């Protein structure tokens, strides 16, 4: 297996949350190619031990001294290391003084508590079309975060946004994507309804019955579109009391509701078709040349 294939497998494993598998795969890559920057980059987020993280960052910088993000991340790691060292030293001092009190490790909590807010801010900047600012926000976040999973997520967002910038991809407002995607299921439903009434709405008034169900399909299609397009929307706040662009749970619930709304009118129409088929007299087979 080539290193490219291993990198892809490792990235898939990391995205799927199989950290140990991913780590093992990237370790195989760096064993075979000690100068593989991408593999070392992934390892900075996959190894658990602080020392190992520092080593991975140093290796990235040895290979590519211009990697600014890893420089910033390494500085953060070194600060953490220094903080832990001073904390240990003070604890030892306290032990020596035979003090019975112990201090809970709260020093890092305020900073990590801000990470979800920063992530949400960065996402909102992106959804608002401010790609440059979003990129800066993600980069600050990459430097701040201590959780390797968040770091992976943020790193992927940075790579994606840089790719979009490099390829000069235009910004499309999420609202227009929602509108566009909302039209898909109603279009299919309307075409089915036309077939169902013999392409003649005037002769077959049942068309208006099917037309009456169209708003339900529109609603379902809208919910499906909102659940897919990542953006801040009033629906998250109203239905799920959530800020930002909706949690995974909220998206799944909204998508399920969307599917129900979309499928019920289709199911009713197909039941009507079945009833018609049951009463259908099959015409005799014609003579065909």
């Amino acid at each position, binding site marked *: 297996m080539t290193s490219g294939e291993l990198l892809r497998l490792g990235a898939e494993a990391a995205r799927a949350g199989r950290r140990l598998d991913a780590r093992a795969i990237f370790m195989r890559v760096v064993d075979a190619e000690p100068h593989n920057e991408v593999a070392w980059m992934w390892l900075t987020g996959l190894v658990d031990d602080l020392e190992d993280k520092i080593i991975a960052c140093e290796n990235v910088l040895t290979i590519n001294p211009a990697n600014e993000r890893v420089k910033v991340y390494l500085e953060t790691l070194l600060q953490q290391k220094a903080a832990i060292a001073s904390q240990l030293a003070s604890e030892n001092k306290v032990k020596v003084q035979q003090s019975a009190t112990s201090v809970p490790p709260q020093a890092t909590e305020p900073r990590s508590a801000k990470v979800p807010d920063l992530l949400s801010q960065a996402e909102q900047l992106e959804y608002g079309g401010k790609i440059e600012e979003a990129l800066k926000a993600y980069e600050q976040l990459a430097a701040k975060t201590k959780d390797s999973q968040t770091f992976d997520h943020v790193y992927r967002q940075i790579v994606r946004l840089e790719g979009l910038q490099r*390829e*000069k991809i235009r910004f*499309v407002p999420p609202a227009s994507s929602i509108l566009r995607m909302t039209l*898909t299921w109603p279009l299919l439903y309307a075409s089915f309804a036309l077939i169902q*009434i*013999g392409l003649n709405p005037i002769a077959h008034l049942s068309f208006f019955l099917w037309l009456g169900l169209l708003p339900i399909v529109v609603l379902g299609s809208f919910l499906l579109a909102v659940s*897919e397009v990542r953006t801040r929307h009033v629906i998250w706040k109203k239905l799920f009391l959530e800020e930002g662009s909706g949690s995974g749970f909220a998206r799944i619930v909204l998508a399920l509701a969307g599917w129900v709304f979309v499928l019920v009118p289709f199911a009713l129409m197909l039941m*009507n078709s079945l009833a018609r*088929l049951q009463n*259908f007299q099959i015409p005799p087979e014609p003579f065909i040349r």
Partner: protein
Amino acid sequence: MLPLNDTEPNRYSYFPFMTVLLIVTNSFIFLVEVLIVRTDFWPFLMRYGVTPTLILDAQGGGALSNITAMFLHGGLDHLLGNMLALWVFGRRVEDACGPWRFLTFYLLAGTLAHVFFTIVQHDSIIPGIGASGAIFGLMGAYLVLYPGGRIRTLVLFTPLPLWPRVRALWIVLYFFGIQIIPAIRILRGEADYSINHWAHLGGFFAAIFILLFLRPEAFARYFSDTPV
């Protein structure tokens, strides 16, 4: 000229789940046709095919027959040709749309194919079956999304068979072009064909809707003059 494969990789997804599912479903239904229906084919076709006179009289299966007709095939060659084209043109269209919107577009193209067929051959009592209307929709969509795409194609016009990578534009134009004369002859009442040319053309025109079905990023790419 037989398109064999699109050699370009996917951008957004690893596996064309819906394309494969459609191929498996079509093949399974063909097996059911061959093994279970066998001789009693006429009533089966009248129930589950699209017959213009029945559609216009609002008789028979209506919307249900519209769906079932897309999954029925008249022979092994009909099935294999359609499934090969579905694989060649469907995989990257699915990649650009996502599996469920791809299915919606596929059904819409098949439905518009049946609408065209019904309108043009309104007095026909011969049922139309096959996935080709929907697949022509995919070919049109492929051309809209990947105008510079290249397809590995088996060319049999030469003394020795060749399999070059041909611009998708030429392949789609070829398949579109060979529909035109028979379609005109049908319209003028000069000839009957066992191939449903007007359904093919109708499916092809469904491609004008493909932009509605794209993923947000694919849509942004389309309007940024970068490969979708």
